[in-house]
Structures are given as structure tokens and as C-alpha cells.
């Protein structure tokens, strides 16, 4: 990434650009340009749309799946969209710092007059744009499946709020892993492994006996509890406040991971030994 900012190179303090923009916004803009103008973001969106298309088509044509009540079809596609959207955000953020190190561009970035905190915030915002884009792409699918049952509005509001919480939390974790990793492979691998661990409980058969341990596991897991909240509203018809406790873990993850990123991130964004430039 090459930043175009005013002089005062290497001070480590945030300076404003000639247009008066704060440093984090400059970084976010540049990162977004790298993500979207290079076609990388669009390729991820294309793959995302292929996957969501397959799921949406299956729910609307497969006889066995079509047995599902229409609200369950909306729930299935929404959960899938949130899960894959968050995965894409995590993968992009996991590349944030370790990728710069591997490409040999971190040194250039560190000598720009933008604070390390601004760099890390800008990168998180850029990664979040991918989540917002995947959410926008999933709207037509949800409309097709949910238009006749009057749950499109709640489904979109739920998907956006829960997905944004998860994307902020996991995107921050991805950037923390990336900042602490020397290799991009390690960072992306560790992030995907973390996501698989978090998604594993959501794949357990719903007919399993659900004792206190299962419930504790579900509530301790931000992804599983966030998706459980979506299900409880869309499928079981619970009110917004009835199962609000499911959102505690996603909210805490976003606050703790986001806070740790802002506080400890600047110390982690540094050049490390043994990393080959370019």
C-alpha cells in the first residue's frame, strides 16, 4: 500500500492530509482502493454469490429442503450469508499486517506520517467493507425467499446487526493474529482454524440432548450464540428482547477484541526479523 499524505514523514504521529482527512480515514480509503480496485474484493464477492445462489436454489427447489417452512429457508440463507461474510472479513483482516510484512511494504507504511493505531483502524474499516458488501449481495436472495412471509425487514435488521457485531469482533481478532504473526500463511491459517472452531457447534444436530454444558458452550461462542439469536427470532417467533442474552458474547467479543486492537495493536504493528521483503 502506498499512502499519499502530507510531509512530516516518520514522526509516528497522525497528521492530516492536504484535504484535512484524519489518518485512519486515509488508510481506510487506500485499503479499500487496494481491495476493490484490484478486483480482489469483487472476486471474493463473486465466490460468495455463487455459494449463496447454490443454497438459495437448493432451499427453493430441493424437495427435502423445500419441506422447510419458508421462515426456515430465510433463516438458513441468512445464517449462511452472515457466516461466509464474516469468514471473508476475517480472511481479509488476517492478511492486513502479516501480508504487508511479507510483501515488504510494511516498512514503507510505517515511515508515513500516520500513527500505527490509525493504520490498524483503517485496515479494520477496509476489511469491514467486505462484510457490508456481502450483506448487500445477500439482500435479493432474502427478498426472494422471504417476501411472502413478511419477515424480510426483521431478517435484514437482524442479519445486519448480528453480522456487524461478529464482523467487528472477528475482524479485530484477525488483525491481532495478523499483527502477531510473522508469516501470512500462519495468520490466515490460524484465523480460518479459529473460525472453524467457532462454527463447529452450529453444525451439531438440533435433536441432540441439550444440557447445561451445550448451552454454556453455545453462549460462550460468539458465532453460535449470534446465529442462535437469529434463529430464535426468525423461526421460533420470539420477541427482540426475549433472547437478548444471546447477544452478550458477540457484543463482548466486539468490545474486547476491538478494544485490544486499538490499545495493543500499535505495539504489535512492527517490523520483525526474518521476514523477506518483496
Amino acid at each position, binding site marked *: 500500500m502506498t499512502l499519499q499524505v502530507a510531509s512530516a514523514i516518520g514522526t509516528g504521529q497522525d497528521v492530516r492530509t492536504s484535504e484535512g482527512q484524519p489518518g485512519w480515514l486515509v488508510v481506510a480509503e487506500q485499503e479499500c482502493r487496494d481491495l476493490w480496485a484490484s478486483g480482489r474484493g469483487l472476486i471474493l464477492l463473486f465466490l460468495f*454469490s455463487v455459494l449463496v*445462489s447454490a443454497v438459495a436454489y437448493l432451499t*427453493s427447489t430441493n424437495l427435502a429442503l423445500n419441506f422447510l*417452512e*419458508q421462515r426456515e*429457508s430465510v433463516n438458513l440463507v441468512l445464517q449462511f450469508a452472515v457466516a461466509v461474510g464474516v469468514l471473508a472479513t476475517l480472511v481479509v483482516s488476517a492478511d492486513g499486517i502479516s501480508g504487508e510484512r511479507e510483501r515488504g511494504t510494511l516498512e514503507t507504511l510505517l515511515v508515513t506520517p500516520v500513527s500505527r493505531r490509525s493504520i490498524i483502524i483503517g485496515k479494520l474499516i477496509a476489511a469491514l467493507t467486505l462484510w457490508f458488501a456481502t450483506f448487500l449481495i445477500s439482500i435479493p436472495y432474502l427478498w*426472494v425467499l422471504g417476501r411472502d412471509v413478511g419477515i424480510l425487514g426483521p431478517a435484514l435488521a437482524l442479519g445486519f446487526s448480528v453480522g456487524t457485531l461478529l464482523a467487528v469482533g472477528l475482524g479485530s481478532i484477525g488483525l491481532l493474529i495478523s499483527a502477531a504473526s510473522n508469516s501470512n500463511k500462519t495468520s490466515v491459517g490460524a484465523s480460518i482454524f479459529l473460525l472453524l472452531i467457532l462454527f463447529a457447534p452450529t453444525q451439531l444436530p438440533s435433536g441432540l440432548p441439550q444440557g447445561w454444558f451445550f448451552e454454556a458452550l453455545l453462549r460462550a461462542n460468539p458465532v453460535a450464540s449470534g446465529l442462535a439469536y437469529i434463529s430464535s427470532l426468525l423461526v421460533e417467533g420470539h420477541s427482540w428482547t426475549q433472547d437478548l442474552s444471546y447477544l452478550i458474547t458477540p457484543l463482548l467479543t466486539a468490545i474486547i477484541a476491538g478494544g485490544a486492537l486499538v490499545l495493543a495493536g500499535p505495539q504489535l504493528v512492527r517490523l520483525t526479523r526474518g521476514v523477506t521483503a518483496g
Partner: protein
Amino acid sequence: MRKLFLIGVLAGLLTWLTAPAGAAAPLSVQVVAEPASVETVLGGRFMITTVVTNTGAAPTGEILAHLNVAGIEGTVYVDPEDWSPSRSQQLSLEPGESQKLTWELQAVNAGHFAAYVVVVPFGSEVAGHEELLISPLVNITVANRSTLTAQGALPIVISIPLLLGLAAAGVYFGTRRRSSNR
């Protein structure tokens, strides 16, 4: 007279001896189910409530309320486990006490069905010839629903990946062309 008395005593003794050991007092329980009828569509979820009341003078001890679903028209195969994964609830009631039990169901077949709750004694002392207490039937009518169709989903399912694929390819090859021209 003495002969008759002796016969009576012997008959009483025989009855007492042949009576099953440990037989509990018969249950005096009333089961009321609500609503009386349910109309839903295939895949629809609904709830039935039953109120079990101990109308006797003695505690019921451990009893089991068990939900069942039966097809009452046509030849639809009904597997009650598909309708409700949790079909048994254990309880015990003091004289005059009532307990409300809720049962969550999902209509997995279309047609005409009846759901009912049976109350049976529970535990190792159950001899096996106790009377069953059954709630009134809840009449369930499940209509076929208009399912999602491929025609409705197909335009979206095809057009979005197509547009995004074209946009991604355009940006990717455009970037490559620009960088090779430099």
C-alpha cells in the same frame, strides 16, 4: 350360617392374596387440552397446552404425560417423533394441584390428524394394568402450502453471480492491462 361366613372369609382372603403386590391407588387425574383444534400449513409450528389436575384425595406420585399424534384420515404415515422431539414430561401432583404442560409441534405431514396426551403412572412400582387417562383430542388440519419455486428464485440465483463475475473479470483484466502498458 357359619358355613356362609367361612366361605366369605375364604373368598376375601383369596382376593387379598391374588391381588397384585404394590398396586397403587388408581389415578384421579383430569387432562384438558387447548386449543381444541389447530389449522396450519405444512412445516408450520404450533403449540398445544394441556392442564393436568389431580382430582383425587391422594398425591399422584410420579406420573408421566406423553404426547401422541395420529392420522385420522387417509393413509398418511405418522411418526410422532417427527412432529415433536420432546413428547414426555414427568410430574407429580398434590390433591387439587394442577400443572400446565406445553408441547411444541411442527406439522410434518399434510392432512387431518389428532394429538392427545396420555397420563400414566411412572416408576418401578407400576404393575402394568393401570388405567390410562387421556386428554380430549386436538384436531389438527394441515394444509399443503405453496412452496418456493425454481422459477421465482432462478433470475436472482443466476443474474447476481453473473453480474459480479463479469465485474470482477472486467476489473481484474483492466488492472492487468493497465499495469502491462506501463
